[in-house]
């Protein structure tokens, strides 16, 4: 259970870490089917003859990228293939850095919301990573290499979050992005106030207003500050050899908030309206922490100067709007307008399907708000990497960075571009040609398994019940955490 070590930096967390690790153990080790290929040692790869969109230093025509030990070893126009190198001839194709999705809910086992209480900082997404989630592969096939996997938005202060690499085929322990600072989800507005989610006859949960959301956060940080101080006093006394010093009772809810105050954990805050955005920036200032990213931030364009001044990042949708009142002033110009006002902006998915075409979503900012090709591409590469504090590792094609790369057959900022290969750490995790060539074999295998199952079912009549369960028919199927997508049944009204 290596996954948890990077997430708990304070010694106070050691006990809970073990407890949770034990709980989580059967989940990963007990996976029924070992997932498909996990690539072996990183080969030496030369991608050549490609148009390379480096993001950091312009476009290189007929360029090459040399990959060694999972890292980018060389970028240029005349790189000779070393002996034993695999050569990908990418004539007419485009190479970009792997797409970083700053708001994702893939690879989460079960629900993303611990909705019972409005401060649920105790729970951690890192403990429920599911490496078999097919959406990891689908998003990989859309060029995504890194995802910020967030808790849901039912709580003013939600659960702890984790940044992962989409290493499909690897166990859960291998998914987290090594060294990436963990985060915590906050949420403002309609969702934490449960405007659209109340169960008829149920007791309302505090808060039910934006005023209450502010006070919920303030109350939690007031407690966290006292708690932090109590520990500081204890540490001081015990360091001075005071044998009578008694450690404060550990508070698992406050531990992550102390990390926020210490700058060891990023705040990713779901928000929509201009007033609540300013509210959170004000509260953060009061308690001396930074808001790392404002998520969704659909009215960010109204207070872009204030966001820029506070140094918060903004991670938004391309063109979603009108699915609830707080999204009625959403505009597709949001990303461009905030960019022009000096905010570091990313375009995120919040949805496994949307993530498969984030390159296209970024391209829309060229039309809506006039970003340049380079600026648009940054929205899904280096900017989200900066927002997640991992830009020293990913987000651009530079020597020394992780070889997380995507090869497209067309300019990626076009609706006609198709991902050909996705590499993470210099390994090919998605290859379109390979995927296509393996389909017939998989279909055959599936048919054989179905026939076997059917045969078994004929012997035991009860088994037909099991066969009726289909993975596609799950009503709780993970979709956008925030909005029922049109692929839901907008017209047939089936979206929950």
């Amino acid at each position, binding site marked *: 259970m290596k996954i948890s070590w990077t997430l708990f930096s304070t010694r106070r967390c050691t006990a809970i870490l073990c407890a949770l690790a034990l709980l989580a153990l059967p989940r990963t080790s007990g996976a029924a089917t070992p997932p498909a290929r996990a690539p072996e040692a990183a080969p030496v790869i030369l991608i050549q003859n490609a148009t390379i969109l480096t993001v950091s230093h312009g476009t290189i025509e007929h360029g090459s990228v040399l990959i060694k030990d999972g890292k980018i070893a060389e970028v240029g126009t005349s790189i000779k293939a070393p002996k034993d190198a695999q050569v990908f001839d990418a004539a007419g194709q485009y190479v970009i850095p792997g797409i970083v999705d700053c708001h994702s809910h893939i690879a989460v086992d079960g629900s993303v919301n611990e909705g019972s209480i409005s401060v649920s900082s105790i729970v951690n997404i890192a403990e429920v990573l599911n490496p078999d989630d*097919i959406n990891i*592969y*689908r998003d990989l*096939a859309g060029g995504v290499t890194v995802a910020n996997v967030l808790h849901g938005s039912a709580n003013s202060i939600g659960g702890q979050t984790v940044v992962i690499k989409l290493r499909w085929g690897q166990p859960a322990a291998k998914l987290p992005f090594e060294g990436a600072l963990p985060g915590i989800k906050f949420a403002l507005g*309609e969702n934490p106030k449960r405007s659209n989610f109340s*169960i*008829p006859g149920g007791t309302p949960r505090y808060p039910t207003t934006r005023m209450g959301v502010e006070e919920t956060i303030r109350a939690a940080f007031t407690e966290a500050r006292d708690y932090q101080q109590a520990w500081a006093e204890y540490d001081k006394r015990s360091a001075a050899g005071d044998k009578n010093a008694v450690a404060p009772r550990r508070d698992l809810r406050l531990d992550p908030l102390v990390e926020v105050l210490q700058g060891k954990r990023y705040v990713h805050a779901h928000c929509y309206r201009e007033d609540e955005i*300013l509210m959170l*920036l004000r509260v953060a*200032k009061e308690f001396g922490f930074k808001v790392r990213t404002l998520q969704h931030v659909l009215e960010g*364009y109204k207070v872009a*100067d204030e*966001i820029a*001044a506070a140094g918060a990042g903004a991670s938004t949708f391309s*063109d979603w*709007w*009108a*699915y609830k*009142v707080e*999204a*009625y002033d959403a*505009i597709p*110009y949001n990303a461009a*307008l905030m960019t*022009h006002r000096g905010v570091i902006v990313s375009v995120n998915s919040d949805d*496994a*399907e949307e993530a*498969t*075409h984030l390159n*296209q979503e970024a391209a*829309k900012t*060229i*039309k809506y*708000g*006039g*970003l340049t090709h380079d600026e648009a591409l940054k929205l899904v590469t280096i900017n989200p990497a900066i927002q997640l504090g991992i830009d020293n590792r990913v987000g651009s094609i530079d020597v020394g960075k992780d070889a997380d790369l995507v090869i497209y057959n*067309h300019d990626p*900022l*076009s*609706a*006609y571009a*198709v991902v050909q290969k996705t590499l993470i750490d210099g390994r090919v995790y998605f290859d379109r040609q390979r*995927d296509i060539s393996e389909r017939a074999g998989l279909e055959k295998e*599936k048919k054989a398994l179905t026939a076997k199952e059917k045969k078994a079912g004929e012997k035991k009549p009860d088994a037909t*019940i099991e*066969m*009726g369960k289909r993975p*596609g*028919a*799950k*009503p709780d199927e993970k979709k956008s955490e925030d909005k029922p997508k*049109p*692929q839901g*049944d*907008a*017209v*047939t*009204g*089936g979206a*929950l």
Partner: protein
Amino acid sequence: MKRLKWIELSVASTAAACSFFLGASAQAQTPTTYALTHAKIFTLAGAPIEDGTLVIRDGKIAAVGPNLEVPSGAQVIDAKGLQIYPGLFDPLTQMGLSEISAVNATVDSSETGAYNPDVVAATAVFPSSEHIPVTRAAGITEVLVAPGSGGFDFSGSRGVIGGQASAIHLAGWTINEMLIKRSVAMVLTWPTIQTASFDVATFSRKDKPFTEAKQDYEKQVNELTDYLDRARHYAQAMGHGGPSDFQRDVKLEALAPVVRGQLPLLIFADRARDIRNAVEYCDKQKLRMILAGGGEAYKVKDLLRSKGIPVILRPTLTLPEEEDDAYDSLLTQPAELAAAGVKFAFGSFDNSFARRLGQQAANAVAYGLPYEEALKAVTLYPAQILGVSDQVGTLETGKVANIIVTNGDPLELTTDVKFLFIKGQQTSLDNRHLRLYEKYSNRPKPTTGAN
């Protein structure tokens, strides 16, 4: 530089807005004749015309071709360097029926109860919906508005017949001015064998055995058969006697054109099994069918082709139904259907995502659909499938002048619509989003700090 372009565009659109609003008022005189000159014209009824002219008169396309004479009195728009296409047609929306989907008071899309053949979408289309101008700015000039029928009620049961879908232009002061055709199809949600459902009381998933789910399904189909039988008898009675001979029933009356084969059923189904069941059912009952959704239509493409069932496809931007389906199955499906000879159109199945219609079609091209087929699948084919191709869908003399003038491929993400005509009137590209953008682009630097 790009921002400058928008300012230019906004000036143009403001001017266009004035002409539109004046145009629709009885007092104002607006041009009834336009000539769009020097454009590359994609009529979709023949080869593209280089350096062509399109003449609009009295709401209709009066002429289209190379070297045309500009009629006297026509307002001339020099479209040099630009391209002209039929306006895009979104064949499945709830435009005007639903404003903010989370706010019930703004939603009129699904009537309660299982059988509502008498309700008509056009009745509840709100002409001032903010979705209309936003959608129009993406080059969509007409849509089908369909009532829903699949809404789960609190007991978990689904509606069957939702009501009549209406085809509308995306401009007009009133629904009467917007109407293309009031009753285009009867919406039916095909019952499915549901082993899993969402239990609202406990907010959790509820499973039932397959055999039980199948019984529920068969019961629903039997009810439908019974309902259609009643409608058939009613239609016969209508044909044989005056109203005094039978008791009037507005629901059965609404179904009469369906059982007579005059009005098609627009049937929502996605799973291969459900599609197959629906097609076979309509075949047996001798009902005209349009398939809507078709998430797994590619798995039954031969059946669809052999029965001549057209499809309104749910967005290509959709994940596959099954975990082990190919990751791109919704993206390659249009190419497969086209190759198999199944007629289809792309639909947004939404309001706020309607502007992704072109993106959907382009994505299908990326995965093998011929470009011209994609273009027709958002213009001509929806018009044909919905039976209004005599009015819209191509740029041909005599058709309603629903036209877009663009600076590039209308399916590409970065293309701008420069001019738009609906019913031969130049129509505003202004919309809520552009207005908010302009307003906040002009916000001065705040004098007080953030906090």
